[in-house]
């Protein structure tokens, strides 16, 4: 809704009543409210601190860790999207995905080796890497398993925005372009691929085309202005803009330059997509457009009156140019406003003013990127991907606003022809974060 429409509504008095109710509701709903709140503090506050911490009243804003995990040394947790504002994910709340625990690495001892089809095999210290020209970009990282809870059928009625799409985070990353390091080593004729390796216990590897590496890949050492968090690859990781998170090798220790991809376990038995035509697709790297309404969203509670519908959108193909919101279960769509984006491959925040009249309805969002890609419905998605696929789910997420103001998953139950033969199509793939 635009400002003029809102003002019109206000002048009609329809929404004015709702506003009165809203402010009353805040006072009532705002937990404890006593005379103390009317005056400033009468005693000294906390002292200066060397490293800041958030308010003790915000301790409930944490990453979601599924109770069903077999181990916490391999798996994923979710960024609490439904409890955050803006587009930058606080480093402490960046989603985690690792395969053998988070290693503890002393940066003074850490090295990066580049070898294989190069003129000069080289070893870099952290100091070497930080001396080289730096680039800072705001970029999303999304796990290919994001959205995996959308494969559940019938839909999970306890789904939250966090569990629907919280395997995405957005940060300011600083590092050296990988192209510079490769130029230092000198690429030999015939080289096409890089095999980056992590220093974690699983010595995680993937294959990355040299062509992409020369375009925009970063070897990053900083996240949101400070050193990477250990769970994000401290002291050194790859950032591969717009591509699935699993290719952005963390704790980067070695890059082998080759003429062939390695076909590692995590690009063959995992992170491959089963398709409706019976094939398995390999190297599904570029992340398709996504959007998620974070307010109002699953398990939240709203009252009648004005609400700013808020959400996040992103695409690995390029800048988000349009987000539409439906307030009537997908019959009609309105264009949401987009906050200015710092980078084409950053998450963007979308917003739409709304006065809820108290009647049950279903709200949903869909995003378009600058290349014209958009999000499918569930039915459109499963026309391409198989029901037993585990990755790259980007179908439209719906939220049902019940008459009592409670918000629940608004996705429809799939038709029998699309229902899985056995429940648990959300498999043990590992990166969906739940099982």
């Amino acid at each position, binding site marked *: 809704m635009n400002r003029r429409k809102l003002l019109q509504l206000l002048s009609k008095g329809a929404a004015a009543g709702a506003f009165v109710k809203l402010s009353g509701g805040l006072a009532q709903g705002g937990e404890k409210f006593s005379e103390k709140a009317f005056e400033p503090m009468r005693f000294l506050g906390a002292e200066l601190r060397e490293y800041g911490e958030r308010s003790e009243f915000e301790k409930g804003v944490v990453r979601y860790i599924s109770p069903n995990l*077999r181990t916490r*040394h391999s798996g994923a947790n979710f960024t609490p999207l439904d409890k955050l504002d803006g587009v930058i994910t606080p480093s402490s709340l960046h989603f985690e995905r690792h*395969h*053998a625990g988070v290693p503890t690495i002393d940066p003074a001892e850490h090295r990066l*080796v*580049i*070898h294989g089809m190069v003129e*000069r*095999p*080289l*070893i*870099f210290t952290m100091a*070497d890497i930080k*001396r*080289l020209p730096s680039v800072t970009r705001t970029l999303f990282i999304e796990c290919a398993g994001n959205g995996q809870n959308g494969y559940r059928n019938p839909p999970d009625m306890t789904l939250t925005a966090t569990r629907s799409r919280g395997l995405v985070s957005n940060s300011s990353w600083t590092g050296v372009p990988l192209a510079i*390091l490769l*130029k*230092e080593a000198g690429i030999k004729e015939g080289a*096409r691929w890089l095999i980056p*390796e992590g220093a974690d*216990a*699983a*010595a995680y*590897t993937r294959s990355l*085309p040299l*062509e992409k590496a020369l375009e925009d890949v970063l070897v990053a050492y900083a996240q949101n202005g400070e050193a990477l968090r250990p769970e994000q690859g401290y002291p050194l990781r790859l950032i591969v803009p717009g591509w699935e998170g699993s290719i952005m090798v963390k704790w980067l*220790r070695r890059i*082998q330059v080759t003429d*062939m*991809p*390695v*076909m*590692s*376990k995590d690009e*063959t*038995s995992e992170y*491959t997509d*089963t*398709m*409706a035509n*019976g*094939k*398995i*697709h*390999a*190297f599904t*790297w*570029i992340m398709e457009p996504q959007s998620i309404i974070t307010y109002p969203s699953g398990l939240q509670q709203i009252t009648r009156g004005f609400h700013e519908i808020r959400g996040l959108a992103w695409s690995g193909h390029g800048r988000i140019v349009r987000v539409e919101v439906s307030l009537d279960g997908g019959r009609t769509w309105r264009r949401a406003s987009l906050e200015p984006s710092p980078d084409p491959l950053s998450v963007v925040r979308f917003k739409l003013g709304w006065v809820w009249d108290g009647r049950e309805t279903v709200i949903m969002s869909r995003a378009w990127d600058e290349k014209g890609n958009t999000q499918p419905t569930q039915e459109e998605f499963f026309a391409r991907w*198989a*029901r*037993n696929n*585990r990755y790259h789910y980007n179908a439209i997420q719906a939220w049902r606003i019940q008459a009592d103001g409670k918000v629940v998953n608004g996705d429809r139950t799939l038709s029998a022809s699309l229902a899985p*033969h*056995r429940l*648990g*199509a*959300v*498999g*043990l*793939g590992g990166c969906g974060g739940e099982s």
Partner: protein
Amino acid sequence: MKRLGLVLLALGVLAGVLAQPGGGGRYQIGTPLTEQEVQRWNIRPSILPDGRGLPPGQGTVDEGEQVYNAQCLGCHGANGQGGVFNRLVGEPFPVTKDVDPVDFVIGNYWQYPTTLFDYIRRAMPFQAPGTLKDDEVYALVAYLLYQNGVIDGSEPMNAQTLPKVQMPARAILELDPTTQKRFPWLRLP
């Protein structure tokens, strides 16, 4: 005015020269390594699909069964049927869209035999990766391929035999069309 322009131009060229990194357009940062030194950092080398990187040594199905029962059974269950962690053994034909992902196993889903050696040596056992000897890894690969019905077990697995094994699921593996459009030169091994 013209002279000023020339002076500015000259200054610009000079600045450009000064801004150039060291010889050969490089920054000359990073320390060169000999191939012998590189190998000290290449402790768990990648195994390419054509077999490059495979070490000497070999292992049989029977040897692999012993290693499996000692090292793997606790997590992956008797005969690779699955336990706390993933099932490894199933049928030697590719998955269909009706197979539950918990039943995606080596025989019906893994597309390259070399991935087995690469991954087991690199990342297994989960609690103690990098501790298996090359012969033990070959033996485990032989045992798991045999259990899945992919090989008949008549010859040991080694650097010559392993890359020749045909994995059933390779028949249904295709390159993602979006990726193919982006990188027309790209072919799956």
